């Protein structure tokens, strides 16, 4: 009896001490935890439930099972939104990354003024998502805008007929150009990655007679692949979320003729214009699942093309 009490004493004290330490940990964590549970996890779970209901903010949600998801399949606007967004992701992301890598390599080799150019090229990605830039962008491509005027000389659309903004075939390229222009963030990451590539490798390759193209494909790309993968993942997810610029340039309509009806824009219309919160929630979850699947796919594929240092492959 006496033995057990003496044995339990230190165990309890240790447990108490651990509990206290845990408590302190949770206490420090609590601002984030409360925010995560209250502002992220809670609303997400609520929206998952709402996606199975008919809910207009107004009356209590009515459970409708899979109806919202079934409706998505026959909703031509949804299909259009999915198409526009897919085109934007498929074309915008690789072009943006190519531009970022190209400029990063130029800057990497530049001896003087690197700091200045790095800041100058990074700047658009800081302000690119802003409302004012979208307005300026629109002004440049509209009938009297500089791009529309110059473009018309080289066989672009007739500036007097509304420039690029009035032409449904050119609004998406216009928005892709806007995102490409914001290549600063991935560029800075590429630049950091390039600095990690040992110079000896290039020197050795050069001695072996490898030209610049060969050096790029055989040294730069493999050694940069973790950074490339990181940028690709980030930019792909980012591209799915395009909203501001499309909203501003189309004056909140997704036009002309639905050519800029991006997924998030359509989701916003359904949720906050039509008050079909159930349907909008279903759309949001489809987006989450699709982005999740694509990320998974990228991770899977990365095993075959991303090389981490110390990796045998």
């Amino acid at each position, binding site marked *: 009896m006496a033995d057990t009490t003496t044995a339990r004493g230190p165990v309890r004290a240790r447990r108490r001490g651990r509990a206290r330490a845990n408590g302190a940990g949770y206490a420090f964590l609590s601002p984030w935890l409360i925010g995560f549970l209250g502002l992220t996890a809670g609303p997400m779970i609520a929206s998952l439930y709402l996606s199975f209901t008919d809910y*207009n*903010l*107004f*009356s209590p949600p009515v459970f409708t099972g899979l109806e919202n998801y079934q*409706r998505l399949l026959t909703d*031509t606007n949804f299909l259009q939104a999915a198409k526009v967004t897919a085109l934007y992701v498929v074309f915008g992301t690789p072009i943006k990354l190519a531009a970022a890598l190209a400029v990063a390599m130029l800057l990497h080799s530049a001896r003087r003024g690197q700091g200045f150019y790095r800041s100058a090229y990074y700047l658009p990605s800081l302000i690119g998502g802003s409302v004012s830039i979208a307005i300026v962008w629109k002004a440049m491509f*509209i*009938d009297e805008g500089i791009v529309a005027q110059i473009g018309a000389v080289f066989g672009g*659309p007739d500036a*007097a*007929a*509304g*420039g690029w*903004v*009035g*032409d*449904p075939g050119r609004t998406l390229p216009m928005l892709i150009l806007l995102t490409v222009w914001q290549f600063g963030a991935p560029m800075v990451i590429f630049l950091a990655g390039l600095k990690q590539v040992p110079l000896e490798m290039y020197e050795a390759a050069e001695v072996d007679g490898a030209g610049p193209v060969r050096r790029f494909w055989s040294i730069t790309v493999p050694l940069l692949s973790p950074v490339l993968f990181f940028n690709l993942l980030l930019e792909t997810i980012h591209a799915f979320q395009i909203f501001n610029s499309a909203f501003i340039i189309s*004056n909140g*309509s*997704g*036009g*002309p*003729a*639905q050519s800029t009806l991006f997924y998030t824009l359509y989701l916003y219309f359904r949720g*906050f*214009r*039509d*008050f*079909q919160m159930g349907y909008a929630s279903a759309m949001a979850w489809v987006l989450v699942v699709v982005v999740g699947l694509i990320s998974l796919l990228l991770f899977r594929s990365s095993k075959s093309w991303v090389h981490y240092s110390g990796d045998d492959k």
Partner: protein
Amino acid sequence: MSSTKPAAALAAAALLGLAACGGGGTPHEAATEFAPDTEAEITFTWWGNDERADWMNQALDLFNQEYPNVEVVRNFNAWGDYWTARNTEAAGQALPDVLMMDAGYLGEYADKGLFLDLGAYQGGLLDTGGYADTLLASGTVNDQLVGVPMGYNAWSMMYNKDLLDELGVPYPAADMTLDELEAYVLQVNQAGAAQDPPVYGASDYTGSFPGFIYARMQEGEDVFTDDGGPAFDEGDVQDYLDSAAELRDAGDFYPVERTVALDPLGGFLGGEAALWFNFSTTVAQAMSDIGTENIGMVQAPTADGTHVLADHPSMLLSVAANTDQPDASAVLVDFLANSPEVKAIFGASLGAPPTDEGRAAVDQSASDAVDFGYLEAIDGEITESYPLLPSGYGSIEAKWGELHEQLLYGDIDTGQFTQELFSEMDMLLG
């Protein structure tokens, strides 16, 4: 055991809270008198910009001169946020005591029993003596007066006199038929072709839902059924769209590419098209955007040149059913609706004041003069109330605009237009 106690207490508290939310007040007998020194606190919400807020504060200061002990707690939002906030409040039975309403939402809210019937105050605290019956009807849902219009306007055709003078084309007549309108558009097109950029007669005038409502009204047909569904079929919409098919197909309307590029201005407001179809109050916007005071206004053309018009409420004041200050709220509605001083502050920016006394109090600007002159001229033709717009109407009107843009770009034909419109109405009006 110890952990279930707080949980049970929480559940009980939540239930009590819910019960408190759901509880309706006891029926209130509408007072007929309200002493100026009565103490009360009421909340009031409207939508609009800072300028309107400034005017509203001036109006409420005047109200407080008369009723110094009624504190009005005020709040305003931009149009888009306004409805999100109100819908959330409505869901929680927590609407402000007095709120500004739009015709497009009135039916939806009233159907849910969210408004007090102000009819009980008519002739007492609320004076509607100077209001036209057709206008009051537009604030009446299920035989209850749930919204008092602060102003009204009517569907019209505006024309840019400067532009027509420059082209040497005579102004359009008040009794134009649709065939004459077509000829007129072509006449302006011809005269304006040499201008840079070319001047057009008009943008496609089948592009907005109110235009369709106007056309239905001429045929003596309803637009919506009592239960909020469409009172028209696909053929009606297609016929309406096809009525402008000839000009549309021949490219005789102001080009859509340019409309989109100039958005939100478009042809008329951009000073490149002669005619515009809209509610009469928008003449103020036209004058400011085009930069001229020379805008004329006549009735929009009809098949035979005669018109059936309706007074369209531009803003309405409603009192929430959940208010605990119904009398003070009714007094505020009466004051804002009738006080000539209030009308003098707002001019016609909330629509033309509905009463003669109110209109007389307005120091008319150039646009007010055109608007009021038009409303006076058509007074004898206002024989209808504007249709009560069902819940979801706002989205349908937006959808019409989107589909019409696709039609003009040639992405869809009028058949697909109607099909998509009806499938959307199925979802939104059902």
